[in-house]
């Protein structure tokens, strides 16, 4: 496989939350594992959210594959995110609030994405670690540009000739505050 980088900015000292499509890609392509090691060497922690783990494991019916996937996602090279109930409550409030912001921005821009539950919870995680967390995802459109910045892009040319693109995105606090303020103005209109 060949990798090319778009921004060539070093991602350092971050919590990198892996989206399911990214994790599934790594599970299929062993060359990608050494790329993850390179990220880890730059003081990054690879994080797996509970919902991503659920998505990764669901709908697998071949018994040997279930075991393999469970062993893969539970490997100690990956870090499970904090899942206590107090954190979950906060993430849930963030997810609902983000869904309102997305819907409001959708009315104002050409944004066409429709993020699902897992994407909302991943975005909520990014809110909890604004400057230090990024999400690695192939579904860049699920993280609208009105709130998120792409800090790096990986283009991967696979052996079968297919091209995959993964983005590393972070929440932009200024954009976020602007969206919050716009929604607040709307809600206070009579």
């Amino acid at each position, binding site marked *: 496989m060949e990798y090319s980088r778009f921004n060539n900015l070093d991602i350092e*000292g*971050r*919590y990198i939350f892996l989206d399911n499509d990214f994790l599934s890609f*790594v*599970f*299929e*392509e*062993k060359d990608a*594992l*050494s790329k*993850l*090691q390179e*990220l*880890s060497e730059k*003081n*990054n*922690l*690879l994080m797996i959210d509970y919902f991503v783990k659920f998505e990764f494991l669901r709908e697998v019916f*071949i018994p*040997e*594959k279930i075991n*393999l*996937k469970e*062993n*893969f996602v539970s*490997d*100690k*090279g*990956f*870090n499970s995110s904090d899942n206590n109930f107090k954190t979950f409550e*906060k993430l849930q*409030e*963030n997810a609902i*609030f983000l869904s*309102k912001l997305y819907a409001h921005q959708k009315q104002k821009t050409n944004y066409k994405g429709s993020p699902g539950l897992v994407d909302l919870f991943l975005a909520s995680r990014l*809110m*909890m*670690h*604004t*400057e*230090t967390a990024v999400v690695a995802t192939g579904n860049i459109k699920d993280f609208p540009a009105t709130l998120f910045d792409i800090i790096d892009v990986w283009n991967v040319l696979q052996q079968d000739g297919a091209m995959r693109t993964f983005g590393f995105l972070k929440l932009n*606090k200024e954009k*976020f505050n602007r969206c*919050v*303020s716009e*929604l*607040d103005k709307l*809600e*206070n209109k009579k």
Partner: protein
Amino acid sequence: MEKIVGKNRFYIADGEPINKGIGFNFDKEAVKRLEVLVEENKKITEKYKKTMMVGV
């Protein structure tokens, strides 16, 4: 961390530095362990693809 703006409450934090002391590194050993699983996955996928093609 908690913020209330108008009718909305949410939780947002500034960038506290990453605490690697609480996490695990994705090191060469992790790569070795997971490569085995990825290879095994390929074999299983191939095996079931053939089984399904002949309708067994």
